[in-house]
């Protein structure tokens, strides 16, 4: 299991190649890349930051749960931090499994859950300014909901 936060470029093909083992029938890859616009506004670059110690703990817990719940053999979750240009990989998820259905399901669950619960934030830099991305609402069991 490979769980990482990195400030270097993510070598997606290289990582995927290391994940193929004899007993696998499928390797499903989610390669999330920086798009050139948000709702039509032209993106210059993105800047990702994380609560690193907690993000790694959460990513490890998700990977463990994916293996336990979906019965897949092995999982990679790598997220990049810092300044990312259009077209670069921000997050890479690789799931290896004997059967494709479990690999697809686990991969999809991993990216959907990561986006809602792992403490990573991005600031979007446009030609005419920069904003923190809105973010997905926290699941009900996590959100504090304010003191009032």
């Amino acid at each position, binding site marked *: 299991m490979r769980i990482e936060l990195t400030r270097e470029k993510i070598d997606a093909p290289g990582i995927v190649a290391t994940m193929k083992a004899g007993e696998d029938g499928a390797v499903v890859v989610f390669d999330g890349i920086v798009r050139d616009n948000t709702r039509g506004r032209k993106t210059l670059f993105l800047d990702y930051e*994380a609560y690193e110690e907690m993000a790694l703990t959460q990513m490890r817990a998700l990977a463990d749960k994916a293996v336990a719940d979906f019965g897949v053999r092995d999982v990679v979750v790598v997220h990049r931090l810092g300044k990312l240009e259009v077209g670069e990989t*921000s997050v890479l998820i690789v799931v290896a499994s004997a059967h494709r259905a*479990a690999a697809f399901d686990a991969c999809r669950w991993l990216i*959907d859950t990561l986006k809602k619960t792992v*403490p990573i*934030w*991005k600031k979007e830099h446009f030609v005419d300014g920069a904003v923190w991305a*809105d*973010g997905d*609402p926290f699941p009900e069991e996590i959100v504090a909901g304010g003191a009032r």
Partner: protein
Amino acid sequence: MRVKVLYFGVLKDYFGEGADVGLPEGATVAELLAQHEDRAQIAWKSIAVALNRDYSKLTDVLHEGDEVALLPPVSGGCYAHGESLAPLAKTSSKSLSGVGKNAD
């Protein structure tokens, strides 16, 4: 007692990266949040709080030296909020058995 508070995302723009905050003994996460709510015009209802690097509840009691982090909705991954895919279909691999067997 004093706790270490960390701020992330948009909260950093209001409060900086972190602060040592004094609280009465027995104070809860809710009381810490209340100390902050008048100082920034943000959607406080959407905030999560981590206590010693794990998600906490409003009723959790704080202790001297705790690390508390105020977390706005997260935005890791690649695409924007509101663009998530539809929920996973309930029909799992079982409903697919018989289709393309051994075709993995």
